């Protein structure tokens, strides 16, 4: 297709994906509050609209109208840069994640993905690595001891669990043979015996799946790994000195990271968008996206479920767990997977 | 298209910036960063020649240079931390006595 068509289609896709992602972030916050509330035997937000549906709108308005206080003792350039880095990286890594198969609309064939690069997985890992700077610079520029301590801990934690995260994905790569996320999903198509789907989680990557989930909880600073932003420990960790819109950016970045991790897990381990498709062509194009969204929704529910259930790790337990248990386990997973593939 | 010499000149400029930083800066961490800058300039030369000669061994060598640079950064920063613990300064001009 011509370059103009490509640009227009890409812009439409970008606008759609960003819109859906931001709405999903807002409603993931609501979902978390309601689910955790119900786990604690209380209603979550339920006043603003039926079942609290308009709560994210109210929260957004509150953030806009709150006073944007910049303490005088912070190091201004980095103080302003840190939430920008966090939220930019969180929103950018959605660009290589495929949501569905190729569709044709109005005579134009296009994949349901903003950019299908053949090193897609490496790009997601790279963007996650850069996202660490948002937290590091936020704590340092705030010039306060709680922030510095929280951000040092969070940075060390994220860097340590990045290793286990990356290594757990290598088993998937060995089975799929490509870094491109669309190729990885295509390698999981089909079924055995007609009803067991050939997802990588059933092809032997169950250990890698659990390593990935645990490392992803640590990467997104969620319970049980949220020592660096725990209220009882460090006031609020690296975002103590932030208020209003800048705090909202950190908040959004955390939930957008959660959604990205959930999308990645469904693409890599749960077969992407595979599921029964039927009906007229318009339904055939949209049903895979629905199956994908269902998997992402289940993932985020598990995230919130774990948050409501588990206590948090102490910092030395956290680091020992990442280096002494998850990393050797991920390496063992690579060894076993490559042996099985080589002997096949 | 971009002539190869443009990439080589860019690499030379970056390397010169690294050398200058190594010579004039007094903070030990900045000196280390200038070393990393020099290594990156060399990486650019490798990749440019690999693209021109269509030889992928340039990329492999870049990979090795990155590994060595990472290892050197890790050990160097560990040395800086242990020097800082005793001398309480990061200025290389002040680390001039063998025994405190």
């Amino acid at each position: 297709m011509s370059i103009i068509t490509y640009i227009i289609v890409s812009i439409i896709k970008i606008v759609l994906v960003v819109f859906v992602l931001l709405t999903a972030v807002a409603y993931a916050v609501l979902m978390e509050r309601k689910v955790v509330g119900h786990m604690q035997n209380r209603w979550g937000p339920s006043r603003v609209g039926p079942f609290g549906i308009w709560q994210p709108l109210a929260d957004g308005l509150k953030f806009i109208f709150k006073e944007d206080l910049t303490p005088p003792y912070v190091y201004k350039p980095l103080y302003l840069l840190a939430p920008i880095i966090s939220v930019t990286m969180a929103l950018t890594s959605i660009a290589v994640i495929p949501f569905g198969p190729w569709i044709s609309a109005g005579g134009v064939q296009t994949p349901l993905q903003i950019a299908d690069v053949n090193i897609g997985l490496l790009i997601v890992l790279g963007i996650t690595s850069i996202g660490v700077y948002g937290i590091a610079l936020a704590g340092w520029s705030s010039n306060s001891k709680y922030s510095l301590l929280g951000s040092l801990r969070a940075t060390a934690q994220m860097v340590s669990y990045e290793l286990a995260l990356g290594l757990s994905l290598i088993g998937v790569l060995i089975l799929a043979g490509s870094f491109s996320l669309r190729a990885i999903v295509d390698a999981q198509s089909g079924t055995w015996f007609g009803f067991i789907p050939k997802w990588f989680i059933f092809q032997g990557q169950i250990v890698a799946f659990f390593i990935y989930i645990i490392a992803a909880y640590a990467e997104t600073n969620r319970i049980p790994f949220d020592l660096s932003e725990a209220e009882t420990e460090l006031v609020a960790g690296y975002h103590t000195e932030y208020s209003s819109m800048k705090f909202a950016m950190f908040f959004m970045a955390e939930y957008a990271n959660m959604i990205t991790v959930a999308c990645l897990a469904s693409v890599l381990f749960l077969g992407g968008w595979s599921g029964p498709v039927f009906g007229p062509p318009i339904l055939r194009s949209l049903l895979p996206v629905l199956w994908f969204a269902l998997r992402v929704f289940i993932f985020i529910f598990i995230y919130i479920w774990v948050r409501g259930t588990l206590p948090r790790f102490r910092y030395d337990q956290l680091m020992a767990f990442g280096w002494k248990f998850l990393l050797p386990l991920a390496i063992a997973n690579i060894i076993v997977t490559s042996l099985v593939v080589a002997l096949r | 298209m971009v002539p190869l010499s443009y990439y080589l000149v860019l690499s030379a400029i970056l390397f010169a910036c690294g050398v200058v930083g190594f010579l004039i800066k007094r903070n030990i961490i900045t000196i280390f960063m200038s070393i990393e800058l020099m290594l990156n300039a060399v990486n650019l030369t490798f990749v440019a020649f690999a693209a021109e000669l269509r030889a992928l061994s340039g990329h492999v060598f870049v990979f090795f240079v990155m590994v060595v640079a990472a290892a050197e950064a890790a050990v160097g920063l560990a040395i800086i931390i242990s020097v800082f613990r005793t001398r309480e300064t990061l200025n290389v001009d002040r680390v001039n006595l063998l025994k405190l």
Partner: protein
Amino acid sequence: MHLVLFLIFGALCVGAAINLLVQKHPINSALSLIVVMGSLALLYLLLGAEFVAAVQVIVYAGAVMVLFVFVIMLLNAGEEEVLPHTSRVAVTLGIPGLIVGLAIGVWVIAHYAGLDRVNIGGPTVSNGTESFGAPSFVARLLFRDFLLPFEVTSILILVAILGAVVLARREE
């Protein structure tokens, strides 16, 4: 088109490198170095080296520089003090002089070697589905022809890890 992109990212690279020299606080120098590494990754993409570009972002900009930033934060490195016996004339004249001199020297040598008539960054020849710098080709070289250096570098990393852990340990 390639020329325009090269000029933009090259200028970003050089600007960030000069910013590294000019800044007094090491955290600003570290951030400038991250910008240098990012723009170098983009230049590698222009040269068709996609695997190397990804590794540059993941390893250099995302791990090594995090280490630098972490140490700067940990040691609370302050602003640099300029000691009195630094000659300001030598610094002000010498820096641009060295940079320009080296750039001119390299250009002259490249011109006489005919390298400014060679063009790179054009459409890279692809092998059907994979392009020039694809991970599969680099991996084939790395794990077959360069297997011994690969294993040696893994031992090097092991030694570096041990060294870093021992050196940074607090004396109990």
